[in-house]
């Protein structure tokens, strides 16, 4: 009888341990471990970025791949974004007899929020997954080890260059996307109306102020940095063979997108705080 009770107690205790370990403690522990490693990775970046030698050629190459190669996708998305936003907003504004406000309203929405966030999300999908998968496959096929045994610092060559390129390329892409998006809005306005190019853009720039444009551009530097940092971290620390390549690409996009929204929330709070 006592043996039966002891066995039952043991089983209950194990089940309790497993429950707490699997359902609550372990994911939390994993999360904090991951955050610690990511912070260390970021610190390593800031340490390596100032130390010579500087990989200028690789920085130019990555800027071309990350920036120039992403332009067509960002441009098409921007055009559609402006067009759709204008077409969707017109009926609501018409209800209030405020159709003439359409160019200004669309411009403020695009420049302040939609342009930076949508472009950053597209960027995370294209560039983030690319960086995550590329670095992870380099890790799996021992290419990163090969670089290390050649006496070359792979972190500086692969990670630092990609992070700097992404940080500077995303703001440029956002400015381009905003401009194309506004052109899309101009087309959208003229589907049902007849507004000249000059009138449309004079209304747009009349309503846009420094506090609309400047903080929106500044936050895109942080978006670009966050996307590249997360993607490089996921790729560089990938394991589990080819399965790890898919996981790295996937988690690079998921976590970068999440971080874009978190940073955006912080940026909006800070902007409203300072513009009071």
């Amino acid at each position, binding site marked *: 009888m006592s043996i039966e009770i002891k066995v039952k107690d043991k089983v209950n205790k194990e089940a309790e341990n497993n429950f707490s370990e699997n359902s609550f403690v372990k994911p939390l522990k994993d999360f904090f471990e991951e955050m610690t490693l990511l912070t260390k990775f970021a610190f390593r970046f800031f340490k390596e970025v100032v130390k010579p030698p500087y990989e200028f050629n690789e920085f130019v190459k990555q800027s071309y791949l990350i920036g120039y190669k992403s332009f067509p996708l960002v441009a098409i998305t921007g055009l559609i974004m402006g067009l759709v936003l204008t077409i969707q907003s017109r009926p609501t504004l018409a209800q209030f007899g405020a159709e003439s406000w359409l160019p200004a309203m669309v411009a403020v929405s695009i420049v302040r929020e939609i342009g930076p966030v949508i472009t950053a999300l597209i960027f995370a999908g294209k560039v983030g997954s690319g960086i995550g998968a*590329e670095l992870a*496959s*380099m890790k799996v*096929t*021992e*290419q990163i*080890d*090969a*670089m*290390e*045994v*050649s*006496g*070359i*610092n792979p972190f500086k060559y692969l990670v630092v260059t990609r992070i700097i390129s992404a940080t500077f390329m995303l703001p440029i892409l956002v400015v381009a996307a905003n401009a194309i998006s506004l052109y899309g809005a101009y087309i959208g306005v003229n589907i049902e109306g007849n507004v000249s190019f000059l009138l449309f853009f004079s209304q747009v720039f009349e309503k846009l102020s420094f506090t609309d444009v400047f903080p929106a551009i500044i936050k895109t530097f942080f978006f670009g940095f966050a996307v590249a940092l997360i993607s490089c971290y996921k790729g560089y620390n990938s394991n589990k063979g080819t399965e790890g390549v898919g996981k790295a690409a996937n988690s690079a996009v998921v976590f970068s997108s999440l971080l874009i929204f978190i940073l955006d929330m912080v940026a909006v709070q800070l902007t409203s705080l300072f513009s009071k």
Partner: protein
Amino acid sequence: METIVAEINNLKKSFGNNDVLKDISLKIKKGENLVVLGKSGSGKSVLIKCLVGLIEPDEGKVVLLGENIPELKIEKLNLLRKKVGFLFQSAALYDSMTVRENLEFPLRDLKSKPKKEIDQLVEEALRNVGLEDVIDKMPSELSGGMRKRVGLARTLILKPEIILYDEPTTGLDPITSKEISNLILDIQKKYNTASIIITHDMECARITANRMVILKNGTLITEGTFKELSESKDEWIHSFFK
């Protein structure tokens, strides 16, 4: 007196509860080909990765060309690594670069050298492995054997004093395996390099080995020439040679 180029003393390495290397001691002389034989998962690759500082040992001394690797700062270690060649099991060619760029990559620090001289070094390295005509191809356009040869050419370009081969013939057909093994021998004769060759290909071991050691469960259990070990009375050792 024979020069010792690499010396390992009481090397220990564990991953979690798994003791991969238990008290390994080994010496490699200049110009010698040392073959490390052992079953898959016996810690052979971990051993050579400890030698170049890719894996940090838990205990023990790893002296390479007179320097204790675990104590070296990264800048010094990188300088030392220029004198060591490493041929990876998968050749580890950089996918995004042509064969020429792959070979030029380890020469990046020699900025003072004129372009013509670097081109000559690349061509010479490819000539040594009999692959001058693939210079502008991408790694994805090469066969497994060609990739290994290009990997070997990249290893040779800095004229290393020691070369570490991680299963150089794995995944190759017997004819190509023999060609790679003969190439390893030619390199030893031409440059008088010391080599550690990790393998379980007995034909490769027969062709290349001056001396062999066998690794079992993280411990070196025996040492000798190919002939001595092939005549071993130990059933387990003998099973490699059947």
